[in-house]
Every structure is written in structure tokens, then in C-alpha cells.
């Protein structure tokens, strides 16, 4: 690691005032310290935000839940409110990383984790995300783990988070604080597609801090399912993952949410496909139709064509299992 100075601000405003191009916030450190060891990140100043009062999980007056940015992934997945009302989120978090990492990783940090593209990690190779304008070796190189949707000529990386796929399906809202005060960003707008500026993963400004994630009150607890397909049964990043959440009344789908992980630069949601599911009786034919519609725009690379059929099967299975599930008691392992 390159030497750096260490600061531990006591207030939000102090933290934000210390931010700058050569500073980085650190929370759990599970991504940042790793990238610093690889010299991908070389901050001159490290701002430890773990002293800030952002560790609560509370009900909102609107019937939703507000999650502090410093709540650990483990505490979030195993919180009674989350287990009972947002089992989809608990399932997604518990499918990610390891118990040790989930104890360290924070809610805010999870959103901001960088891609696992091998070239991004290897400072001996070009990479547009790491060094804008240097090129994208993944396009013609090792791209088995890469995107099939929403990629650009400049970058075909995927966002690696599991938690974010569930947050996208649940239409969470990201609360941030910056020099100009507080603002809120709908989850669908938080992460971005690479376009010709793949160095930017999301809409957060350098001097903005995530303070919390708000979950709206939503009727998906009974019928939801997170499916993660990976190279081994546990402790591996997703090849493809699917978060499916349905509200069903007398066999008819009232509302549907469908988000995919491992396939794009951001958790992938397609409102047209969700609309297509709504108001119709749940059936395998309908789910198959939805999967085909969502994947119509897929553009696989040389090594990841398998992700298209994998995603198709995972979507059909996640929707079917969400439909069949009854988590209404909120009991999750």
C-alpha cells in the first residue's frame, strides 16, 4: 500500500469537508483495502467514517425502513424488520461474500464496491475504468464474467453486488449528504451504464457521503425470491442473479419487480417487462415470455454467451419460486 494519512471525523460535515480527489472514505474496508493492496486505489488521505452515527435500522413514518450507511451487511440481513418485511434483501445479502466479510462490509460500501473485472484489478494492463482512455482488453479478452446487457465499446464490466440487486427490485432510495446538504437518489438512477465514461460507476459526487438507504413500505414479503448462480455453491461472485418480487391476489399478479445481477454495469431492471407481468394470471408461460422479453436486447461477448440461457432459466425459476413461496411468517434462515 502507498502511505497515506488517516483521519477520523466526528461529524458528517467534517467528513464531507475532508473529501477531495486524493481522499477516500473508508467504512468496512473490504473493497477499498483490497484495491489499495493492488495499487488500484492510492489515496493520500483516508477518511474513516465509522465514528459517524449512521448505524441504526429504524421504521419510517411511511411504514418503510431506514438503514444507516454503516449498518453491517450481517446485521442488516439478520435484523427482525428485514427478515419479516424484506426477506428478498436478507436472501440477497446472505448469498454474498462470507460471514466474516458480511460482518465488516457496510450498507453504503456495498453500493460502491468496484467491479471484479480481472483487468481492472491488474495495474499491468490497460483498463478504461481504471485509466480512462487506455482501452478495454476485456472486450476481446477474458470476458466470461462480463456484461450481456447495457455495455459499451469502452467497458463491458458488471457490478458485482448481490445486495444491490434486491435493493433495485425493492425500489430503495439512497440518501446522501454533501457540501450543499442532503439529497435523495432513486435506486434505479444511482448506478450508471458505462457509456464513454466507465470510470464513473454511479451518480455520487466525490465529496458526497451515503448516509442511508430507505426501503419503501411494499407488499412483496410473501412472494419473493433471490437466486444466485455461481461457479461454486457458496463464496463466489454471481455469474447471474435474479431478484423476483410479486404481489399476487387470487392468482393474478398485481405488481411485479424483477432485477438481475451479474449481467450489466448496474442492477438490471426493465419496467416494460415488469408491466408485462402485471394484471395477468401467474404461469410458467408468462414467466418465460417475460424472460425472453428482458433478454431480447442481450449482446453476449465471445465467452459469456452461456449467461443468456442461464439468465433465462434463472428468471423463470425465480419468478416461479417467488410465486410458490409464502414467506408471510417472515421466517428466514
Amino acid at each position, binding site marked *: *500500500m*502507498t*502511505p*497515506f*494519512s*488517516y483521519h477520523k471525523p466526528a461529524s458528517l460535515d467534517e467528513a464531507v469537508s475532508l473529501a477531495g480527489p486524493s481522499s477516500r472514505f*473508508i467504512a468496512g*474496508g*473490504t473493497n477499498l*483495502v*483490497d484495491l*489499495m*493492496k493492488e495499487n488500484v486505489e492510492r489515496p493520500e488521505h*483516508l477518511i*474513516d467514517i*465509522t465514528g459517524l452515527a449512521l448505524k441504526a435500522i429504524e421504521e419510517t413514518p411511511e411504514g418503510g425502513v431506514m438503514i444507516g450507511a454503516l449498518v453491517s451487511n*450481517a446485521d442488516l440481513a*439478520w435484523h427482525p424488520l428485514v427478515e419479516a418485511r424484506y426477506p428478498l434483501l436478507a436472501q440477497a445479502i446472505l448469498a454474498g*461474500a*462470507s*460471514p*466474516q*466479510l458480511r*460482518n*465488516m462490509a457496510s450498507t453504503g460500501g456495498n453500493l460502491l464496491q468496484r467491479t471484479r473485472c480481472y483487468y481492472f484489478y491488474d495495474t499491468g494492463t490497460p483498463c478504461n475504468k481504471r485509466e480512462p482512455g487506455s482501452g478495454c482488453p476485456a472486450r476481446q479478452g477474458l470476458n466470461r464474467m462480463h456484461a450481456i446487457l447495457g455495455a459499451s465499446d469502452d467497458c463491458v464490466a458488471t457490478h458485482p453486488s448481490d445486495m444491490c440487486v434486491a435493493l433495485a427490485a425493492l425500489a430503495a432510495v439512497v440518501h446522501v449528504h454533501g457540501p450543499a446538504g442532503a439529497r435523495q437518489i432513486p435506486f434505479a438512477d444511482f448506478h450508471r451504464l458505462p457509456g464513454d465514461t466507465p470510470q464513473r460507476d454511479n451518480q455520487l459526487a466525490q465529496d458526497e457521503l451515503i448516509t442511508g438507504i430507505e426501503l419503501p413500505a411494499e407488499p412483496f414479503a410473501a412472494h419473493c425470491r433471490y437466486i444466485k448462480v455461481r461457479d461454486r*455453491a*457458496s*463464496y463466489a461472485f454471481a455469474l447471474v442473479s435474479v431478484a423476483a418480487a410479486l404481489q399476487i391476489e387470487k392468482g393474478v399478479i398485481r405488481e411485479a419487480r424483477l432485477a438481475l445481477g451479474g449481467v450489466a454495469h448496474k442492477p438490471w431492471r426493465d419496467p416494460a417487462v415488469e408491466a408485462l407481468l402485471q394484471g395477468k394470471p401467474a404461469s410458467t408461460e408468462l414467466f418465460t415470455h417475460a424472460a425472453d422479453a428482458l433478454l431480447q436486447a442481450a449482446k453476449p461477448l465471445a465467452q459469456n454467451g452461456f449467461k443468456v440461457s442461464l439468465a433465462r432459466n434463472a428468471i423463470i425459476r425465480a419468478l416461479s419460486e417467488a410465486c410458490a413461496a409464502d414467506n408471510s411468517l417472515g421466517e428466514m*434462515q
Partner: protein
Amino acid sequence: MTATPDQGALQRPLQMTINGEHKTLTVHPWTTLLDLLREQLDLAGTKKGCDHGQCGACTVLRDGKRINACLTLAVMCEGAELVTIEGLADGDRLHPMQQAFITQDAFQCGYCTPGQICSAVGLANEGRAHNRDDIRELMSGNLCRCGAYSNIVAAVEEALPLIKGARP
């Protein structure tokens, strides 16, 4: 990393409790908890496998929770209560998890074992493992190159009911 005078100025005071002993230390901000334990404190029981959060060999307990020491900056442990493999036994009496690893022959080379045992104690504290499948899933953050997995699961299963505070 060799220290230059400039780097010396970046050193930070650090207080924490390690295996019940209060410590006052001075560390560089870039020193990981793992390097602090092994290089500065001679607590070499905690192992370095990958140094990237991928193997679990460096697992220790911070305030009762299992974490990867290799991805933890020591400066960020101010005020923490740390327990490493060296701190689990009660004098000459092994911790039930250590004893179970011996009874069940849950290791071959032993390199992953300190991390496995600390991780298993963390698992017991969490109280979320109810059967062998749960144990397998919740021990998946600890790799064993010797493949002692089946005996590790048996050891954790044996020790769980013996650990105070662990919900069966």
C-alpha cells in the same frame, strides 16, 4: 514497507485489548491488523493465506464477531476487544471448539485451522447454524487446501452445544 521519516510522522497511537490484555501501540495507518498481530506482537497463530479476504486463514474475533484481519486496518480497531486463536483457551483448558477439532481430527497440515476455529466460534456466537447444511454454508468463508471439510463440519457440530451463548 520501510519507514522513512515522513512515514514515521504518519504513525498513530492505538489502544485495544488483545486476548484480555490491554495494549498501547503505535502503528502506521497502512498496517493491517494481520500484520500487526504477526509482525509486531508475535501472535503468529493467525495465518496469512491470501491477504485478500478470500481464504479466511486470518479470521479473528473483534468484539465477538469474526472478521478477516487481512482486510482490517489496525488503526480502525481503536478500543476494540480482540480475540485470536492464542486467546481462546482458558489456561490449560482448551476451548470446546479447539477440543472438538482435535477429537474429530479436523485438520491435516493445520494452516487453515486457527482461522477455522475462530470462525467457528464466531458462528456459535451468531447462533444461526441449526444443522450441517447451515454449518457448511456459514463456514464457507474458510477454505482448507487439505480438504478436511467433512471433519471440520463434524467438529463444529460437536462443539456448538457446548459453547455458552450458542443457540442450538
